[in-house]
């Protein structure tokens, strides 16, 4: 677990890994950190799938919500569901690079906008139910 004790040589037999922008520099971090990073990526993916499911469910089920507000809420959810996998990928790559270079971990720029968006969708659905 100590730092900088891995020899730079002796790794030449390791396969080249995708993407080179991540694995092309730094040294191997503790595998447990990489695995945790992978699980964070998967959590973003599942969040995205849940947003898609919510968007489709709103439109497919109707639920007595005013059609305009319902469509707006649905589209916002699905666009969010399109952006979350991208946050997952770029977050994963930046984090893995930071782990390899022993630099501070990046924040997730989409976390706050996503929270706001889900709140907005809640308000839209509420208005759509009341109208």
């Amino acid at each position, binding site marked *: 677990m100590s730092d900088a004790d891995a020899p730079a040589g002796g790794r030449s037999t390791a396969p080249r890994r995708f993407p080179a922008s991540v694995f092309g520099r730094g040294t191997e971090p*503790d*595998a447990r950190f990489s695995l945790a990073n992978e699980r964070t990526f998967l959590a973003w*993916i*599942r969040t995205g799938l849940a947003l898609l*499911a919510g968007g489709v469910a709103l439109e497919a089920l109707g639920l007595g919500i005013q059609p305009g507000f319902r*469509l707006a809420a*649905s589209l916002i959810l699905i666009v969010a569901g*399109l952006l979350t*996998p991208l946050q997952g990928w770029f977050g994963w790559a930046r984090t893995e690079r930071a782990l390899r270079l022993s630099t501070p971990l990046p924040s997730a720029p989409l976390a706050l906008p996503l929270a706001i968006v889900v709140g907005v969708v809640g308000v839209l659905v509420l208005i759509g139910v009341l109208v």
Partner: protein
Amino acid sequence: MTLFDPGLQPERTALAWRRTALALFVGSLVAMRILPEVLGAWAVVLGLAGVIAAGGLLWAVHRRYRTHHRMLLEEGDRTTLAGGRLIAATTLFCVLAAALTLVLVVVMAITGFSLVPLAR
């Protein structure tokens, strides 16, 4: 079975992948149930593509876990784990699925389609 880590990190990661694949699988089945009334026969093609992708993901994840497990036991925590190909492929698939979903919802809104007609 010998384990690399008392925290079971590789095992937890494999389970997280399986949860994700399961969500894709269920989502594809639901899509196959909803889409035919909007898209016709294309719905079955898209649904089957999702089911096959989810199955392929489970298989790839199984291989990935076995590789990680073996390498961690043999080489310890500084071993070279698998790269990001599966992660990139998963991202791409989900972005494409989201784009298709966006089109679908717009079509559903235009045609006034609803699974529950009385609730509109």
